[in-house]
């Protein structure tokens, strides 16, 4: 008779997943046992408390790692190291902030019940699993747990056909990418005989594969799967549609946790498991990074819907993290972690502002005209968040970009320098669309009769033509009649109805995103030290 050996479990390590799952299941049970609909604020409360518990557990894990060094548990498929702890910390904070943003939205839309919170808790449990996984199969499990929650969340606004369409698109493409990912795992297993990252690294460093093809194909498929998830060009086409259609508070959440979870996992796979295969995967990552940064920034300049614009901007951000991945160095890993931490706050904060401003369902840039007059604090917060995303000095956004570009240039070869220049050019382009919104918020509200005949201007012409016009407008000497910035006439009148106040929970969340962006931007030391130290504790 065979006996099944139960592997030893270091419970403090998997406590985050346990906390979040218990909270999710508890909420579900409570909502079915309590007569009537459970109020959504209960869900918010439970989610925030659960996140706080995870943060406490992170501190405990950090102390544990500082004493005993990084380790693995559960038959070496789960890792406890500095990198995973910081990633979990970011995920937990993102969850809490998103729950606060969603709370205001649920109240406004009069959606009762705790389903949104249950799904969010489950998704983050999956993302945390990805951040801790030391085995390709466990990564896949985490990926699926995370994604399935998000598919439903994308469809959460049942009254909106767009939301359903977005969810369907996300589900189909997500399903495909998962399948590709699994096939990648199979090929890697076929080439090396293991799916565990530690064994993979050992095997590859002690053996020479006579035929690299199988492993290379597996690596490529794994990368494609990841690239779909983080929406890297050319696997990005789903993301603007999904961002546009999904409920706004969900989008911020989705953008943050998918990027953190997926990048944490891919960093581990490439930098630890397949480290010896750099010559194979680095050119692929190079292409993904360069294309994502440029295409993301370029396409964002011609968007008129704020959510689509932020979707393309987030594609560009993915390119920056890929830059650090390409570097494949300790500096790169630390920079990627720092980038993800700052990006999560920026994107959640930005979408929180969009949630509030687009209360009447209008998401085109028009609704931002004159925002500063109506809501000075909100406009000021949005300005800070957008400027930080643009990488303005003395915000965390600048430091994040500094870190990843440093890691690329550190190689001192042509590819690294070229990537650095591409990244900075993408930053310059992205300055265009972030600042355009900021200026609009401070512009005086202009009332233009909506029946005025629209001249064929930049805004109405095709994207490619618009890009060409923008480029020549920047380069030529006299743009007096050029069209660099949309004029008032192209927009409709400013929104008339704007009486709703910002819900307290949302305001707290926005403040929690804005304040660290500025504070750590000026007083950068602690956060940079933390991510760097976390990476030094990276499990080999």
């Amino acid at each position, binding site marked *: 008779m065979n006996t099944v050996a139960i592997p030893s479990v270091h419970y403090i390590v998997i406590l985050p997943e346990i906390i979040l799952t218990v909270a999710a299941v508890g909420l579900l049970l409570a909502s079915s046992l309590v007569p009537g609909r459970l109020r959504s604020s209960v869900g918010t409360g439970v989610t925030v408390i659960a996140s706080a518990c995870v943060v406490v557990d992170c501190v405990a894990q950090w102390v544990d790692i500082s004493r005993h060094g990084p380790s693995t548990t559960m038959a070496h498929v789960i890792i406890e190291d500095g990198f995973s702890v910081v990633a979990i910390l970011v995920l937990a904070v993102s969850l809490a902030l998103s729950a606060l943003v969603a709370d205001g939205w649920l109240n406004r839309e009069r959606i009762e019940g705790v389903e949104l919170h249950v799904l969010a808790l489950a998704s983050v449990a999956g993302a945390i699993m990805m951040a801790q996984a030391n085995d390709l199969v466990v990564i896949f499990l985490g990926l699926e747990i995370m994604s399935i929650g998000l598919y439903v969340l994308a469809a959460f606004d049942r009254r909106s056909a767009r939301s359903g369409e977005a969810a369907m698109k996300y589900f189909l493409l997500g399903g495909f990418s998962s399948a590709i990912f699994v096939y990648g795992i199979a090929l890697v297993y076929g080439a090396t005989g293991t799916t565990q990252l530690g064994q993979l690294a050992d095997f590859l460093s002690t053996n020479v594969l006579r035929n690299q093809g199988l492993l290379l194909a597996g690596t490529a498929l794994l990368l494609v799967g990841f690239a779909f998830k983080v929406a890297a060009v050319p696997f990005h086409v789903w993301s603007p549609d999904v961002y546009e259609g999904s409920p706004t508070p969900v989008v911020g959440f989705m953008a943050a946790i998918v990027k953190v979870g997926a990048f944490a996992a891919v960093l581990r796979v490439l930098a630890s498991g397949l480290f010896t295969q750099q010559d194979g995967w680095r050119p692929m990552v190079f292409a993904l990074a360069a294309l994502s940064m440029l295409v993301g920034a370029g396409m964002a300049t011609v968007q008129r819907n704020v959510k689509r614009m932020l979707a393309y901007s987030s594609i560009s951000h993915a390119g920056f993290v890929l830059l650090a991945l390409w570097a494949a160095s300790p500096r790169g890993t630390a920079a990627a972690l720092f980038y993800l931490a700052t990006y999560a706050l920026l994107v959640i904060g930005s979408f929180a502002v969009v949630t509030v401003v687009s209360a009447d369902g209008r998401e085109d840039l028009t609704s931002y005209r004159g925002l500063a007059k109506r809501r000075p604090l909100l406009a000021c917060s949005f300005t800070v968040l957008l400027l930080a995303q643009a990488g303005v000095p003395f915000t965390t956004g600048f430091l994040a970009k500094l870190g990843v570009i440093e890691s690329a240039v550190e190689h001192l070869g042509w590819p690294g320098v070229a990537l650095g220049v591409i990244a*900075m050019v993408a930053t*310059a382009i992205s300055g265009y669309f972030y600042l355009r919104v900021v200026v609009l918020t401070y512009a005086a509200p202009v009332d233009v009769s909506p029946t005025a005949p629209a001249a064929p201007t930049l805004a109405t012409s095709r994207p490619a033509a618009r890009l060409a016009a923008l480029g020549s407008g920047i380069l030529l000497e006299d743009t007096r009649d050029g069209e660099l910035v949309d004029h008032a006439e192209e927009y409709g009148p400013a929104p008339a109805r704007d009486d709703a106040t910002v819900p307290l929970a949302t305001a707290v969340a926005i403040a929690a995103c804005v304040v660290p962006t500025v504070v750590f931007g000026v007083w950068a030391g602690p956060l940079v030290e933390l991510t760097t130290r976390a990476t030094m504790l990276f499990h080999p």
Partner: protein
Amino acid sequence: MQSSALLIALVVLPAVGAGVLALVPRLEGRVATMVGATIAIAELVGAALLAIGYHPNGAVFQDASTQVLAAPFGLFWRAGVDGISVLLIVLTAIVVPIAILGAPERHRTRASIGWLLLLESATVGSFASLDVLLFFLFFELTLVPAYFLIAGWGDQRRGPAAAMKFFVYTLVGSAFLFVGILVVAFLHQSQAGGALTFSLTALSSTHLNGTTGVLLVLAFTAAFAVKSPLFPFHTWSPDAYSEAPVSGSVVLAALLAKLGTYGIVRFDITLFPHALVTVGPWLFALAIASILYGAVVACGSSDLKRLLAYSSLAQMGFVVLGIVSLNQAGVSGAVLLMFNHGIVTTALFLLVGFLAKRTGLSLVTGVRGIQGPAPILAACFTVAMLASIGLPGLNGFVSEFLVLIGFFGAQGWWVVIPTLGVIVAAIYLLWAYQQVFQGTLVTPAGASISDLDVRERSVLVPLLAIMVVLGVYPKLVLDRILPSVVHLLAHLHAAGLTTTSVGLR
């Protein structure tokens, strides 16, 4: 007070003022102007103390301070001043209060003054940085307030477009600077070992082979050439200068343009002496092209603001010409010209602003005979214009003369070509003066031309006084910058390069 604390305070104070203005909505309107002016004048007093406390023959960099900001990224606070940076900090501290008091905005005053103060912080920070990365931070930070000033208070229709063009163009230039900075730092780290550092003194010992050095000097100079601007990277500047509000034009032309040429002086000479000599002829060519192109296009400009923009282009060409001459006369003349151009151009843009306010036109074109109803305005314009042309006895003459001597020392009789630029400058400025101020009075319907009021006169007086004092007694400034220039050029000698010896001693 310890003087390194003074320097830090000079960088931080205006930013704090900007933060206060941003957070306290009650300080709107005239109160905002008062608060802004108070802070800017306090800054001026501080800058004066800094200049008085500076010993020309003391340590190379004085009032130095070092502080860790984010060690893993190599981000440190390293600040200090030599004669060149003290002079430019003083220029900044003079120009900003004059911009605040001379051309206050009618609407959203609080925000416009907040941006001006933030810009002052960023500019002073750039001039005070002894760390290349820190310099880049401040250099980039200047873009944001400048952008908002042009977009928010400039021409209603064209301001945002001009601002955007300025922002994106400059940022693309900085892309190369940023990557160049990182490459130098990592090369230094690979040679010297140790932690990543961006300290200017440490990096100046980096060994660069020929090609790498040339590429790096090109990368650095790309950003500086855009910012200065230098032909053919100037295309953003006529738009930005002419669509900006008066205070915006003043800070753009008087301060931000200097960041570019300061960058060439401080970083190109210190970090890449060999490569700078290699690319020198190309920079000479660009500088001369700027001088001639700026002068010719200025002749054809009907709008005074655009004329001043092109005239600035020509003047910055002279500055670069002096710097790349790489001798004492050339470099100290260039530094002096940076200061003088800042003062003169501030006065000219203010005067054009005053004129525009009176005629109610955003473009000063189609008005004539202003000197009849406004003799003092015309007189002030005459003085500033003559200083810009380079009339002996006013400040412009000394600096332009030194630059030309320096260039003669470096390139001999080629000096004839830039000298042509001086003559053409006289043509277009006198021409413009004739058209606008002389002849019979022609004004747009409904405009009443009055002379300068007390406030307008009082902001112009210090500028005109500086023009005369430095025209008569330039030694006041030259004595302070010369030791620093000598030290700067010692980098070239240490690198085994011989420069033409046009000394000033």
